[in-house]
Structures are given as C-alpha cells and as structure tokens.
C-alpha cells in the first residue's frame, strides 16, 4: 500500500505545532496501525529526522495507552478497537491519513501525538475506589453480589481509561469515563457505603479539570473501544441526584 500521512508535530507543550506530510510505500495490509508508524519512524531515523512520538505500550488493546485521532475518529475507522488493534487493511491504497492527538483542555499535548492524561488519575484519586485497608477485608463470600449486577459492574469496569470518549465528544466531556467507575461501584454492595461521597467528589474534580458537559450525542459510546454503555452516564446522574437530594 502507498499512503500519505499528515501528522501533527509539536516539539513540546509550549511550542506551536503544525501538520507535516509524509509518504510511505510498501505497507502490508496486515500491518497494525502502530506498526505502520514504526516503519515511518524507522525511515525518519534513517533520514536523520526525529521520529514521531506517540503513546503505546501493550499493543493488544488493554493498557489504554494508545491515543490517536485518525481521520476524524479516535482509534480510527474500525469499531470497538484501540489504535494498536487497527489494521491497515481498513484503509485503501493511496489513502491520505490525518493523525492528530487527542484534543481537550485537560489533555495538553506533551509532544507530537502524545498527550497528558493525568487528569483521569486525578479524578480516580477523588474516589474511584472502595476504601479498604490491606488485611482489613472480611471473608470474600460474606459479601454476596447478584450475578446480573455483577455482570453490569464488569461491563462498566472494562474501561481502559484511554480517553477516546473525551476525544470523540464534541464537548470534550469525560462523563463516560467517570460514570463507568461510579457505575461499577454503584452496582456492587461493597460500593454503597461511600457512594454519595464518591459521585460528588469525582464529578466536582471532573468539572474543575475543565472537561466539557454531556449533550447526549453519544459519540463517546460509539467510539469506546470497550463498548462502555451510555446507560452508565444515566446511572451516574441518578447517583448524583440521590447524593444531592436525599
């Protein structure tokens, strides 16, 4: 395959960035998207240019590190995959591919396509856990949890924290991410005790960090590589109303 790439290059957080065009030839359709970038980088190194910086690690769609906005879609044109699981056969010979970093105020660009997502960690630090000290746990089967709710909790817990929801949302809203964690604990008996504090604190932090609001376009759900449902956002809203009103 022959490809034209337009990639965002930015030296650091303070510098201005710009799109740079590269062309690539002889790309196998079986190549993954990140391997295609590896090939580009190898060529750049040979030409004494600096390679394109992008985040990646596990390359099997679970660590949540890769974060590329490809031709107008986070993680590219395939559904329910991360960029590392996207294969070049999803593109056509001669295509032009535009690669941009996630764009959101709370996700500043560090370099090229690499952004700082520590905002997500800050939200989790506000209450994305159940407060239990090591060794202080009761016998596991003393806590019974219904199968149905456990399955729903697992659906929500599958979030990999990649930030595609924020990148896809026209408002750069983090509601899907935040609601997935709140939902997981709201659905389990263990999570009830701190439920009210959790939703209030996490939402407060989400707002402070400058994420946008939800306007129900559900782009987050459509782009989530783990198919996290928008019903989690509804559940978070319910939890929030209960926490504030009752």
């Amino acid at each position, binding site marked *: 395959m022959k490809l034209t790439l337009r990639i965002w290059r930015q030296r650091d957080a303070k510098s201005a960035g710009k799109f740079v065009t590269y062309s690539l030839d002889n790309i196998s359709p079986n190549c993954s998207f990140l391997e295609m970038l590896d*090939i580009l980088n190898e060529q750049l190194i040979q030409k004494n240019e600096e390679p394109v910086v992008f985040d990646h690690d596990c390359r099997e769609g679970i660590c949540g590190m890769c974060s590329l906005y490809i031709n107008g879609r986070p993680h590219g044109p395939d559904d329910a995959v991360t960029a590392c699981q996207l294969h070049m056969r999803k593109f056509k010979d001669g295509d032009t591919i535009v690669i941009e970093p996630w764009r959101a105020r709370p996700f500043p660009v560090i370099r090229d396509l690499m952004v700082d997502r520590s905002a997500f960690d800050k939200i989790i630090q506000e209450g994305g856990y159940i407060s239990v000290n090591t060794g202080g746990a009761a016998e596991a089967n003393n*806590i019974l949890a219904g*199968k149905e709710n456990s399955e729903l909790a697992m659906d929500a817990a599958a979030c990999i924290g990649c930030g595609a929801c924020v990148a896809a949302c026209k408002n750069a809203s983090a509601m899907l991410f935040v609601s997935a964690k709140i939902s997981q604990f709201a659905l389990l008996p263990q999570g009830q005790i701190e439920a009210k504090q959790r939703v209030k604190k996490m939402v407060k932090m989400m707002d402070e960090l400058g994420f946008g609001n939800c306007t129900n376009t559900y782009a987050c759900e459509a782009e989530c590589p783990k198919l996290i449902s928008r019903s989690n956002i509804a559940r978070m809203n319910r939890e929030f109303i209960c926490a504030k009103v009752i």
Partner: protein
Amino acid sequence: MAEINSKIPKGPLTSKWTHYKDHQNLVNPSNKRKLDIIIVGTGLAGSAAAASLGEMGFNVKIFCYQDSPRRAHSIAAQGGINAAKNYPNDGDSIYRLFYDTIKGGDYRAREANVYRLAEVSNNIIDQCVAQGVPFAREYGGSLENRSFGGAQVSRTFFARGQTGQQLLLGSYGALSRQIKLGTVKLYDRHEMMDVVLIDGKARGIIARDLITGKLERHFGHAVVVATGGYGNVFYLSTNAMGSNTSAIWQIFKKGAYFANPCFTQIHPTCIPVHGDYQSKLTLMSESLRNDGRIWVPKKKEDAEAHRHGKLKANDIPEEDRDYFLERRYPAFGNLVPRDVASRAAKERCDAGFGVGPTGLAVFLDFRESIGRLGKHVIEERYGNLFQMYEKIVDENPYANPMMIYPAVHYTMGGTWVDYELQTTVTGLFAAGEANFSDHGANRLGASALMQGLADGYFVLPYTVQNYLAGEIRVARMSTDKAEFVEAEKVVQARLEKLMAIKGNKSVDHFHKELGKIMWEFVGMARNEAGLKSAIELIRKLRAEFWKDVKIPGIINELNVELEKANRVADFLELGELLAYDALNRNESCGGHFREEYQTEEGECKRNDEDYKYVAAWEYKSEGEFILHKEPLDYEEIEVKQRVYK
C-alpha cells in the same frame, strides 16, 4: 558478597509464616512517617505494596515509565487468579495449591515461599472482593470458580477474560486513595536508571524524567523493585513494548544476584508472526486446544505450496495431514502441557513443514469439532477468541483452520530474593515477576496474578517493616551526598556515551537482531553448541551496538529512541547471562529444555542429583558472572518426575 542465605524461618512448614509475623520487628507510627520507601513499578506487586505501605503510614514514592500506574502490563493477564478457598467443595486446600505449584514448577521452587504463597492466596481474594473487583458470580451471589491449566480442582477466580485488568484496577484504586491522602507520591513517566548504595545498603535511586530528560535523585530508606519480567529480550513476546529488564539489570550490577534467568515460559497458542515489521505477539487462551486439533501437512511440497499461497489448508486431504501432537503423545494428544506443545510445533516447522507466509505456523483446526458439536457450540465457547483472531489475521477461523505459533510469555527467573523478598543487597527488595519468584522452572496458569498480589499486599508490608525497624535512627539523607552525585554521573555518562555513538542503525534493528539470536538458540529448545554460539553472537552484536547505534534528538528532553537504546543495552547483556545459565543447567526442566537431556519420547529429563538448586548469578564485570547455588531441600514434598504419558 556474603554467601547466599535464604533466611527461611525455623519450624514446621505450615507455621513458618505465622511464626515470622509473630516475631517480626515493628516500627511505631511516629517513626513510620520518617521512613521513606521507594517502589519502582506500578503493576500488581508494586501498586499493592505502595498502597499497603502507605496505609501503614510509611512515606512512599512510586515510579512508573507509563503515563499512569494503571497501564502496567499486569493489566493484560486474561485467565484468572488461583486461591485455595475450596468454595466448589472439590477437595482443594492450601497444601494442595502449594503442592501443585511446586510440582508444576518442576521442583525448582523454594518450599517455604510457595507454602506462604498458597497460604495468603485466600486473603488476596478477600481483599480484592472488598475493593470491588467484579469477579464472576453464581446466581446465588457467591463467587464462581473455574478449572484452569489442567488443575484437578476448580480454584480459579476470574473477571471475564480480563482478570489482570480488574485486579490491577483494584490495586490502582487503593494506590490512588493513598496518593490522595498524601502517603504515596506518584512519579509517572519516570524511569529508574540506577540504584544508589550507601554503606552497602540501598538508599535511593537515580530516575530520569522522561518528559524533560532530566536526571533526578531520590532518597529512600528501602528500595523495592517490581518492574516485571524480561521476556522482551526475545524482542517478540506477549509483553508490552516498554517492558524491560533495566531496573533488575542495574541492581544486578550493583550486587543483587540474578536467579535462574534461563527459566522462560513459551506459550503455544499465539497468533504467528506475519512480517518483519511486527512488534508484538498476541496471546490466545490455551483453552482453544480443548476442541482444536493441531496439524501440519505431511508432505513438504504441500507446506511449501501453502507458504506461497498456492494451496489452501482445506484443500489438503485428511490422509496428508500430520496431527503431530496426537501422533507423538497419543494419551494427551492436543492437551499436552504448554512447553511440550510448543516444542513439538517448533520441531515440525524447523523440519520444513511449517505453514503460513513465514513457514512459522501450524494449523489449529476446528473442522472436526464444528462437525461434531455444531458451529453454535464452538461460537459459544470461543466466540470472542475467534473474533479477535479474525480481526488480526483477517481470515474466518470457522471456515479455515487457525494458524498458531508459540511465543515468549513469562519469565520465571529474576532477581534472587530471600524469604523476605530482600535481594543480596541490604534494603533492596524485589517483588512480582521481577524476582525469581515461586514458580520454579515453570509457572502454572492463574498463578502470576496470585504471586504479584501476594508479594505486594501480604509479604512486603511485613518484611519491609521488619527491615525498617532497624533503620529508625537513620535520618533522611541529603541527595547531595557523594554516592548520589557519583551514581548520577555514571548514568549521565552512559546516556552521553549512547548519544555520542551516532552510528547508522536504529535501536530496533539491534533489538530485533538480539531477538532472533535468542529465539533461535536460547528459545524453546537449547543445546550446548547453540548456546555457545549465541554467547558469541550476542557479544558481537553488543559490540556493534555500542559502535553503530543511531539515536536522534538530544538528552535533555523527551527522547523515545534514547529510552529504548538504554533498555536494549541492558537486554544485550542479559541475553548473554540467560545463555550462560542455560548452558550451565545440564538438564531439562519446566521451561528450560536442553536437547541433550530428553527421554526417547522427547520429554524433559531432569537431573535432581546435580541441579536441584537455584542458580544465583553474581555480576563480576561485563560478560563475567559468578554462580552461587542455593540448594533446594524438600521436607514436605517427595520429588517426582513429571509424566504426561
């Protein structure tokens, strides 16, 4: 360096750990605040230890090279986590879990450690459930178990196919809570470059801020290394791209022994390599072998034709198929253990019967079971795996046989530690896959998560405290001390040296070359001549690396190529040690297979007489290592041959 002392507590096996806990030294709360602990790595072991020690009141600093602690590669573990809860009432017990682990490890693990692991396995489940880990449940609301890795009992707890992810998010949550409370300070996008020793004790690390490229000095009364395994020495593995050996290699050079490096685990059911641009191998659950039949063509010309795309698998008639596992192991057939299946596939491919474009693949065929059970049953059992396969390979596995090949998956070897998980350097601890661990020569399924969390939640908090009880009079040290300055200088010099090479070949080129050597000669099947040539080749490659590697950019900013070069430089040294260890171990056991030592049927031939020990290597100088032996005495268990016939 002191002679090896594993510090196993006295007394009967079943009460060693209780005895240890009852008699360990404690630190009072006001002193805990004054004691700093550095933890490197945020996987299961690292994050669990940091959270637990933070809760206890120590002052913890935790480091990871990723952008968030939640990215650590523990997240990729699929299958599950073992515990001796005996919920299904099928006769499981702590002893049985202990026994299975020792036996599965081919009698190369330390009895007391493994018993402790089995003992605390139940606490891990309690802890994780309390944290809200969404384990699978029965309709009655109790926890569900399944059998895994051929165990006779169902003792595996699981959260769909994402158990590692859920356990890691649990410990990440606990860690996040401590970060919020201020007991733990997180340094993300930081990489440990070296450990700092003062008066023979670990007192801190030199870390590189990966964003600014600046070196930082961090003091700690104790240092814990939990940086995972070194499978990426093979370049292609199921590990994450960033997984590396640098932390355990640096501490090795500073005096921490490295144990059993040759014990590496190869997983048979991975998606094969499809091109030299490939960066990563993807694992598929080995449960596929329950219903799939593994074969290659009987005729070389058929294999050849398939490689060139001239012949489809389905066009090869039944009589021309060689179901080599069923042929060689009629009793176990396709269900032989991981190592046996992997080696048999390699043997066929080496003999020229491999299929696929690279010739490095064998078929995993579901035609018969689809015919027998119906497509819907296969879909129900393996639907998600088939889907994943189709996404990657772009071929429908219901219609055409899958192609699979073995890949490096886990490393049982690692930093040598005593019963307290302390290395041979005082005050320096190693946990999780980074230490040489409790798996002996081979790890059983669903045991890695168990060990990582056991070390982090239930061992280190006791043993680190026990160590720090003797350090309460040591005041926080200034990082301007000569030792810190010197260590930073050494690191700076090494980075400058790397940058100054300005050669012609990229870091990846060398990493790939190293991988090829390792896979060829130090992979699934090893022999003396091959290992000796591997050592030569690695030395040559290393020399070439230091002459010809090309790193663009500058030191004092984000420089991904420099990060990689620094890691590959260490892999290039580790590879040699791995080969040395494999050469030294004149036997076949677990993941280590020496062609010279096999039975007529191609089984492992263990040599308990001469090799029932842990090989702990001491670093002398580059390419020079001294062997120390820790004999393994089995008091409770009778040592037997593993038989699959």
